[in-house]
């Protein structure tokens, strides 16, 4: 006699119910767990184990954010090298000159555009993740600024900066581990 334990739990509501998972007990008492590959149905334990993979996603999204944030800072530094003309009160023409100079300052515009991408990605990450995990991960942007400044501005890496980079990476790795716990 073969007993099928119905430890089945629906996952999602898409209704593609061809897949299934079950524990089968044969006459000799051997229990075999199996599940169909195209599953929309998972036993309880599988659903809880599937959660960590999901909870990592916002972490990677914030890491992506930090790349945008680092690049934005580099661009804004380039942009700051072209000083903008002053706005003189009671002289409307100076406002036009200022606006034109602002729009012509490509690195500055690029910096703001990158910041906008960064904000959007951060918001999407915060929707699904914990603030206490995601916000400190944002500190990786320091690392990108240091690395990108070495490339773009020939800044040198000293012992303190390298130690700082390593400590931040250590902290963020730890946060990543914390976030993967259910």
């Amino acid at each position, binding site marked *: 006699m073969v007993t099928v334990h119905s430890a089945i739990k629906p996952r999602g509501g898409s209704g593609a119910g061809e897949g299934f998972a079950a524990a089968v007990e044969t006459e000799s008492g051997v229990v075999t767990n199996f599940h169909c590959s195209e599953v929309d149905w998972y036993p309880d334990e599988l659903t809880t184990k599937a959660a960590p993979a999901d909870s990592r996603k916002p972490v990677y999204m914030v890491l992506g954010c930090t790349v945008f944030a680092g690049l934005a800072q580099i661009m804004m530094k380039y942009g700051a090298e072209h000083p903008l003309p002053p706005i003189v009160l009671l002289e409307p023409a100076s406002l036009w000159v200022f606006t034109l100079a602002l729009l012509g300052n490509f690195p500055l515009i690029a910096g703001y555009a990158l910041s906008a991408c960064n904000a959007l990605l951060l918001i999407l990450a915060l929707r699904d993740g914990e603030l206490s995990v995601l*916000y400190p991960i944002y*500190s990786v942007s320091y690392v990108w600024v240091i690395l990108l400044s070495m490339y773009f501005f020939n800044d040198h890496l000293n012992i*303190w*900066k390298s130690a700082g*980079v390593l400590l*931040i990476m250590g*902290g963020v790795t730890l946060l990543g581990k914390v976030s993967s716990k259910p």
Partner: protein
Amino acid sequence: MNPTTALNSTPISSMVLVMSASLIGSFGAVFLKLGAERMKHGFRHILNLKLVAGIALFLGSSVPFVMGIRHGELSVLYPMVSLSYVFAMVWSKVFFKEHISAGKIAAVALILAGVVCIGVGGS
């Protein structure tokens, strides 16, 4: 530069400005999170007042930051910027009832130490 000199050559006003920038920034993060949670009902909820408030606070925090960082030593001021991570962790406990584990505290301590090092290396 040795730590005492760095501390003495940094005006208190700069420290206060930078610390208030990190406080404002941490509230920015809280409002972004509040606004982001509304988007669970669909992407079109991206236009909501809480997100606008969050972005405004983030942009607003850069004003005291730039003013504060103009004078004084980065080795003193940078760690104060990263206080926003500590503030944010307190707010996530207070406002979002998130669990603050020992791992999270250790991680933020490592990050703070890292930012201190970067501040020292940058000045």
